[in-house]
């Protein structure tokens, strides 16, 4: 491979984050939600937007993607950001993947601070102040009229995005299918955000508010694998080699 001397547009690193593990000890039924709601009432702010991993070791059911999606929807409606599962069966892991969750391995116990009713003020401050990244993974096609918002990080779509659909992310946007709709990366003003796609047929792409429409993009990049990024306040598009 020829060395071009160009700076890599990204870096890959491993990094560990602390997540809260929610261990299910039965089915995700009414009783479970009632108990969960009770717990959340005790410390309403502590769990809000914290990354959650579901431990399915003792869970029963939840083996179909519909069940998993229902569970995720219920949890997310309680402002619990579920990011993955652990100790699931093969079926449960498959269901988790289709619900946009990652099956995780390992994990080490750490003390969950402020888990009791009297939440430490300073700790709470830190939770809300720290902008912990949370990528959003979408595995289904994004249909016309749908809008997907990754408000705390990257948005990864492992399918196509139809014309009339909208992807919005605080971080980068990756589309591993055709991008036919709109993609707006770095919406909080992050000029380092980028958009990557396997086939550019977008109606509009934007990074940190600077945009190009389909017309502006021209025919050179149409249906090509490209990345888009900002350079000196100009939105640049280039082919991915």
């Amino acid at each position, binding site marked *: 491979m020829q060395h071009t001397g160009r700076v890599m547009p990204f870096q890959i690193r491993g990094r560990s984050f602390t997540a809260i593990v929610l261990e299910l000890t039965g089915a995700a039924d009414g009783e479970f939600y009632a108990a969960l709601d009770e717990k959340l009432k005790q410390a309403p702010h502590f769990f809000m937007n914290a990354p959650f991993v579901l431990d399915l070791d003792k869970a029963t059911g939840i083996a179909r993607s519909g069940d998993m999606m*229902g569970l995720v929807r219920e949890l997310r409606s309680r402002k619990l950001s579920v990011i993955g599962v652990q100790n699931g069966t093969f079926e449960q892991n498959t269901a988790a993947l289709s619900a946009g969750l990652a099956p995780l391995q390992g994990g080490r116990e750490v003390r969950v601070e402020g888990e009791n009713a009297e939440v430490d003020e300073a700790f709470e401050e830190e939770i809300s102040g720290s902008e912990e990244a949370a990528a959003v993974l979408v595995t289904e096609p994004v249909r016309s009229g749908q809008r997907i918002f990754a408000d705390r990080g990257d948005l990864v779509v492992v399918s196509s995005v139809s014309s009339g659909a909208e992807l919005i992310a605080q971080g980068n946007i990756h589309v591993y299918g055709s991008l036919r709709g709109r993609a707006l990366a770095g919406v909080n003003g992050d000029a380092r955000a980028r958009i990557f796609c396997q086939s550019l047929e977008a109606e509009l792409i934007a990074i940190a508010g600077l945009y190009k429409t389909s017309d502006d993009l021209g025919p050179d990049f149409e249906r090509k694998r490209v990345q888009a990024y900002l350079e000196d306040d100009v939105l640049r598009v280039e082919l991915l080699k």
Partner: protein
Amino acid sequence: MARIIVVTSGKGGVGKTTSTAAIGAGLAMSGKKTVVIDFDVGLRNLDMILGCERRVVFDFINVIHGEAKLHQALVKDKRLENLAVLPTSQTRDKDALTRDGVEKVLDQLRDEYDYIVCDSPAGIERGAHMAMYYADDAVVVSNPEVSSVRDSDRILGLLSSKTRRAERGEEPVKAQLLLARYDPARVEKGEMLKVDDVLEILAIPLLGVIPESQSVLKASNLGMPVVLDESSNAGKAYLDAVKRLMGEQIEHRVLAPERRSFFQRLLGRTA
């Protein structure tokens, strides 16, 4: 226990009602007890396409509002003993549809029939929403042109989020594509989208391709489902689609443009 199938499209005029009539009649011809329901309140057409408009006394809305019994409103088809039609009201509007009312009617029909086919109105508002809400399967009707395909895509998004199955987190509504008014000659000239182009955009299984055919309009005007016309290509294509809907594996027919004979070209018209 009946399966509930919604025939929907988003865009108007793509052939939802024609397809509902053809699918309903096709299922009935295969020996399945089938009822078709018109959800297009205020624009009552399904009963006309099926040729039973002169026998309508009560309608779907009357039943929902408790003004008539379900069996009083159901119209039995005269040609197909397994087919019944639940017509809608021409004088009311979509607000007359209530979620509870629709559920009650569907629950009553479920025990008695094998298939309940719901003819959705165009659009994405209340009527379309009510028609798809309780569905198990969806037949998404599209034409090979961009606006129809985009509207179908929008409907697919709603099917995966605004139905009872989606809300309860059950197995999603199984959506399949019925590509109607397909004209191979115009596709070859590049005036219409190819089947593959549409499938690439919508990413759902293909239930069938219905060729553009004079027999469809003729059948509609006669009030006869096109599947009863044995000479019609469109009718045959619908029957294939119905078999696939029932779970049979039927090969898709090759759709090539019709070659015109020397004499036809000489006369300058198609057969």
